[in-house]
C-alpha cells in the first residue's frame, strides 16, 4: 500500500434530514471528500448491526450513520436506537481488534450542508489516519 491511502467510507443517511443536507451541499457546490459513498435509508434506526458489519467485511474502511437531530426523528426513536446500536457494534469491533473509530454516528438537520461536509471530512481524515481496514481486501477493485 504505497502512496497516500484513500479510505472508502460508507455513509448511511436518513432520508429525512441528513440526506437533505447532503443534497444541499451538492446543489450549493460545496465540496466533501469523494471517499464518502451515501446510502439513503428510510430511518437511521433501520440500519442494523448486520448492515454495518457487512459494509466493513466487504471493503469499507469506515462506516458512519447520519441521523436526524435528537428529538426530530420522524419515527420518534430511530436515531436513539441507532446510537445504542452503534455502541453495540463498536463492542463487536473491539472483539475483532478492529478500531472502534472506524464507526461513527452523527445527528444533523436538513439544512446543515456545511456541517455535513465538515463531518464527512472528519470521518475521512480519522479513517485515513487509521489506514486500511485490516481485512486484507484490495479496495481498488471496489
Amino acid at each position, binding site marked *: 500500500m504505497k502512496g497516500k491511502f484513500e479510505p472508502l467510507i460508507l455513509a448511511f443517511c436518513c432520508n429525512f434530514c441528513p440526506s437533505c443536507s447532503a443534497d444541499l451541499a451538492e446543489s450549493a457546490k460545496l465540496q466533501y471528500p469523494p471517499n464518502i459513498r451515501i446510502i439513503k435509508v428510510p430511518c437511521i434506526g433501520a440500519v*442494523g*448491526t*448486520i448492515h454495518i*458489519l*457487512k459494509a*466493513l*467485511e466487504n471493503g469499507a474502511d469506515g462506516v458512519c450513520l447520519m441521523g436526524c437531530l435528537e428529538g426530530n426523528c420522524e419515527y420518534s426513536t430511530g436515531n436513539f436506537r441507532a446510537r445504542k446500536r452503534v455502541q453495540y457494534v463498536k463492542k*463487536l469491533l473491539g*472483539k*475483532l*481488534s*478492529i478500531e472502534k473509530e472506524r464507526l461513527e454516528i452523527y445527528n444533523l438537520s436538513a439544512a446543515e450542508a456545511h456541517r455535513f461536509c465538515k463531518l464527512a471530512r472528519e470521518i475521512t481524515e480519522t479513517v485515513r489516519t487509521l489506514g486500511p481496514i*485490516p*481485512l*486484507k*481486501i484490495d479496495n481498488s477493485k471496489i
Partner: protein
Amino acid sequence: MIVGQQKDFDEIKKMISGYSRLLVLGCQTCVAISFAGGMREVEILASMIRMDRKMAGQDVEIVEEAILRQCDFEFLDSVKDLVADCDVVLSLACGVGVQAMAERYPDKVILPGINTTFMGLTEEMGIWSERCAGCGDCVLDRTGGLCPIARCSKGLLNGPCGGSVNGKCEISPDVDCVWQLIIDRLKALNQLEKLEEIFPIKDWSVSGHGGTRKIIREDLTA
C-alpha cells in the same frame, strides 16, 4: 419461551478453531425472539467469524441457515445436506436444539453458540426475565399467577421473608419481592384467604431431583 444469550465471541472462536467449513445454524423460535439465535444473529456471527479469520489469514467457508425449530427431529432433516457438507455445526439453538442435532447427526461435531439461560418472557424490547423454573408441580393457582419458585430469590413457598423491604427483595433494590406482588394481587382478586393455607413441604422429586425427567403418554405412543 426459552431465553438465551450468545456466548462470548472469544469462547466461540476457541471452539471453532481448526475447522474451516462451518454451518452456523439458527433456530427461528424462542431464541430468535430473545435475539440470541435467530437468522439475524446467524448472519452477524457468521460475518464476525469471516472477518476474524480473514485477519488471521485463515480460510473459512460458512453456510448460514436457520430452521423453524431445532428441538424437533422432523425439522432437522431439512438441513441434512448442509450438515453433510460441513466440518462442524455451530448451533445457535437452546441446549435442547443442540442435543437434538447431536442425536440426529451422531457423526457430526455440534457446538453450542449460545448459553441457554431461563424460561421467561419479554418485558419490553431488550429486557427478558425469568418466569418459570419447570419445577414439575405448578402452584400458580394458589399464588395469584405469580411463581415463587422462579421469582423468589429463596424460592420460598410461605413468604415473604424478613428481607422484603418496600416491595423489593433484599438481594437488590431492582428486584421485586414476588411475595409482595402475590399478596397485592390476591388482595385485588379478593382471594387473600388463600395465604392462610400453609404450603406443605414441596415434592422436589418431580423437579429433576429424582433424575432426568421423561413423560410417556401411552395414548399417543405408537
